[in-house]
């Protein structure tokens, strides 16, 4: 805690350790209770590990190829675009950006979206999630989270004082027994189990479609089941749709907000970083009915207040172009999934050939693979107490130079132990990276 008595002659500038004070017992825990138990973070741990070892990195979800040139040019143009590009813009979103987002998504969902009432621009979709939870979740509210889930939902709900209630997607057993290769479509919710999670304390449900890490793209009927429950129980739906353009094999992305009765209770979250393969720009948004979005704005104006102007301008330019080219072959929102589809198939083939059972994703950036059939001597004592997939991933990094992410990180603390046999690969990588991964896996397979 670093609090020491002034009267001590030796001034101990202590940047590492803490001294308890006498008295003032309330001060012994310097940090606020709201951050209790949310200090561990898989990305901090695993990206450090990937950096420490020379690895082929199929771990964290970001492209290692360049964003489309027109978007990089748009940023350069914004940078050279005069004084106002470098100064504060409107707090809730740079006007050209919110205007084009309203126009673009209004056309997608089929009704008018008000640029200044229904949209909040945030520092990545991550901050949109944070604003949503902080704005709407109170102490002891329950939030239903479908597993596996992007890991930040759980600590964010906790930080808002809420309670995560988990319901897992499960592989449909008949497909498994039939020996067919699993796809993410084979992982489904039990409607009864889902319904049983709703109660008067339920404030919200979080869905993520396409899903990270599984890649599931929820069908309209599946979303309807969720929507019916939201309406019946008067619950808010938080729909994380950052991978909305990335669907494969004819899977269609459906926005739950477009279902009847859902616009007024849904916050839909999107990402410039994922849309334009520029994750480092950190431009995201929340779109929803004004009366709900205004609460997100209150959080935003009391936390970061503005987002960077030039990046927003560039994303606006990107959407302007995509608005005009939507549905045509020149649209990046068609070209990107086409390109990624090839990579998806390439990785799946490679994993199958070395005995790692992939679950073919219908959408998104990632593929998960069942490692239960692999027999590996994980003789690293430093990871002894960790779940099997964590140990395996660390071993794979250190011994084989290949980085992935353990899937139990995407499960609740309660269910983690039941899902320790999957690892997640990101295939949004240059072919050379995927080839290098393939080499490693083949060599390893040959050794066995």
């Amino acid at each position: 805690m670093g609090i020491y008595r002034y009267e001590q002659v030796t001034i101990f500038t202590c940047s590492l350790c803490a001294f308890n004070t006498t008295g003032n017992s309330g001060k012994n825990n310097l940090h606020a209770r709201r951050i209790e138990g949310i200090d561990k973070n898989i990305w901090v741990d695993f990206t450090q590990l990937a950096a420490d070892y020379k690895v082929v990195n199929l771990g964290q979800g970001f492209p290692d190829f360049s964003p489309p040139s027109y978007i990089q040019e748009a940023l350069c143009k914004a940078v050279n675009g005069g004084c106002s590009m470098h100064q504060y813009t409107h707090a809730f979103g740079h006007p050209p950006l919110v205007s084009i987002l309203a126009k673009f998504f209004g056309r997608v969902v089929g009704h008018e979206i008000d640029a200044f009432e229904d949209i909040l621009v945030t520092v990545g979709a991550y901050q949109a999630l944070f604003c949503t939870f902080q704005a709407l979740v109170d102490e002891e509210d329950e939030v239903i989270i479908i597993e596996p889930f992007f890991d930040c939902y759980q600590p964010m709900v906790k930080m808002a004082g809420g309670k995560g209630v988990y319901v897992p997607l499960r592989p449909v057993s008949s497909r498994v027994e039939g020996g067919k290769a699993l796809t993410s479509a084979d992982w489904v919710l039990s409607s009864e189990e889902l319904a049983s999670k709703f109660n008067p304390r339920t404030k919200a449900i979080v869905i993520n479609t396409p899903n990270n890490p599984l890649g599931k793209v929820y069908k309209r009927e599946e979303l309807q089941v969720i929507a019916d429950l939201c309406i019946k129980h008067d619950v808010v739906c938080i729909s994380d749709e950052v991978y909305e353009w990335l669907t494969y094999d004819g899977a269609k992305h459906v926005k739950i907000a477009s279902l009847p009765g859902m616009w007024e209770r849904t916050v839909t979250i999107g990402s410039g970083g994922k849309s334009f393969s520029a994750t480092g720009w950190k431009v995201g948004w929340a779109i929803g009915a004004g009366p709900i979005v205004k609460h997100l704005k209150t959080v935003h104006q009391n936390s970061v207040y503005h987002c960077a102007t030039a990046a927003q301008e560039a994303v606006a330019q990107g959407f302007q172009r995509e608005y005009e080219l939507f549905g045509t072959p020149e649209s990046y929102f068609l070209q990107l999934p086409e390109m990624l589809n090839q990579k998806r198939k390439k990785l799946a083939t490679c994993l199958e050939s070395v005995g790692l059972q992939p679950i073919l994703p219908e959408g998104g950036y990632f593929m998960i693979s069942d490692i239960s059939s692999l027999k590996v001597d994980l003789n690293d004592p430093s990871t002894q107490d960790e779940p099997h997939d964590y140990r395996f991933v660390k071993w794979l990094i250190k011994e084989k130079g290949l980085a992935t992410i353990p899937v139990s990180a995407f499960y609740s603390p309660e269910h983690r132990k039941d899902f320790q046999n999957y690892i997640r690969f990101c295939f949004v990588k240059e072919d050379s990276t995927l080839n290098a991964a393939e080499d490693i896996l083949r060599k390893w397979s040959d050794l066995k």
Partner: protein
Amino acid sequence: MNITRRTLSSACRLININCIRNISCSQCAMTSSRHTNSKRIEGLDKNVWVAFTSVAADPTIVNLGQGYPDIPPPAYVKEALANAAAVDKLNQYTRGFGHPSLVKALSQVYGKVYGHQIDPFKEILVTVGGYGSLFSTMQALVEVGDEVIIIEPFFDCYVPMVRMAGATPVLIPLRLRSNKETSSVSSADWVLDPEELASKFTSKTKAIIINTPNNPIGKIFTKGELQTISDLCIKHDTLCISDEVYEWLIYKGHQHIKIGTVLTSKQMSTLPGMWDRTITISSAGKTFSVTGWKLGWSIGPEHLIKHLQTVMQNTLYTCPTPLQEAVAQGLLRDYELMGRPECYFSSLAVELEGKRDRMAAILQDVGMSPIIPEGGYFMCVDVTPLNEDLSHMGDDEPYDYRFVKWMIKEKKLAAIPVTAFCGDASKKQFEKYVRLCFIKQDSTLDAAEAILKNWNK
């Protein structure tokens, strides 16, 4: 079309006219009361900037309101951003707590300023502006039921951030020295009463926030004043949150202070016993005149910074990469030049001092007595000599709010009311003051001068 409508309707709300209902409410269906805001943001939706900054979109208004430059940032900083944007991997995620080249550059610059090594990975957190650092600090360290001492006038976000953390703001005003004639007042003449300050510390006091140079008054706390504060922090085992976003903008004051003593702004953390209990907050936006980049940083001991990092990883995770890289490049360039006139940290202060003096002269020429700031880029002035009777505007708002709204409408000149920066109990003390931002082009200052000269015409 949307933008014009929005600006117009905001301006209409601003000047209290029955205005166009700006939005069709087809999507504002009756929502259930269950979809109301969480308790933590209850009452925090009002914000002076949301009310006044729509004014910035109207080019006919001379805007000395919100604090951002209309002068260009230095060319090398813009070039650094353009260069970064062209590098593929700089368009992807970087390290959550701060891009490595940036935290290393910060470690160099501030290591020099503090006179001791600063660990780039453990003692620095990069945030979305100084604002983001304030938020991370409050969320990390301020508990429900705590008290946080805030000195008035204060940058307005401190109070709602303290409240959002469930704590109680405890306010104490700076006061004009009683023996001071009003004809030539400096921000140094606005001081704390040490006994009054001591009385604000209780067993619940978790932290005190100081802002030096201060926004809006421009005060630079002296070593003696900081010593008084630090003695109380140590006695009561309190944290100190030191908002130093204007750290480089230090002017020659009534006492002759050499620009080299910019290091005195760091004294809070270098006073004995203070490093371990202080978070110091800075801003790239204010340092490089790029407020729209929204990058800032917190520096402090590991045992405190680690909690801010926990907040960061659960709120927005990482800041934009190309912007961080560009700020790193800017810092490295100016690090080499530190202490020399070509260093932007010095040259900006020199340029702004000229504008400060010009702004003061403009106000004095029309009979007003500005508070000459020792630092920062704002000037507060008592508008009483202008003798505007605004009783026709009702009395539900403090005088300065009415004055600013009236001035925007009638004189096309924007400022910010200083009671936005104080609590209710101090409103009477500050309600005749408005804040003017002078980090503006000469043509903007010329236009302001013309308006003031023609005031009574």
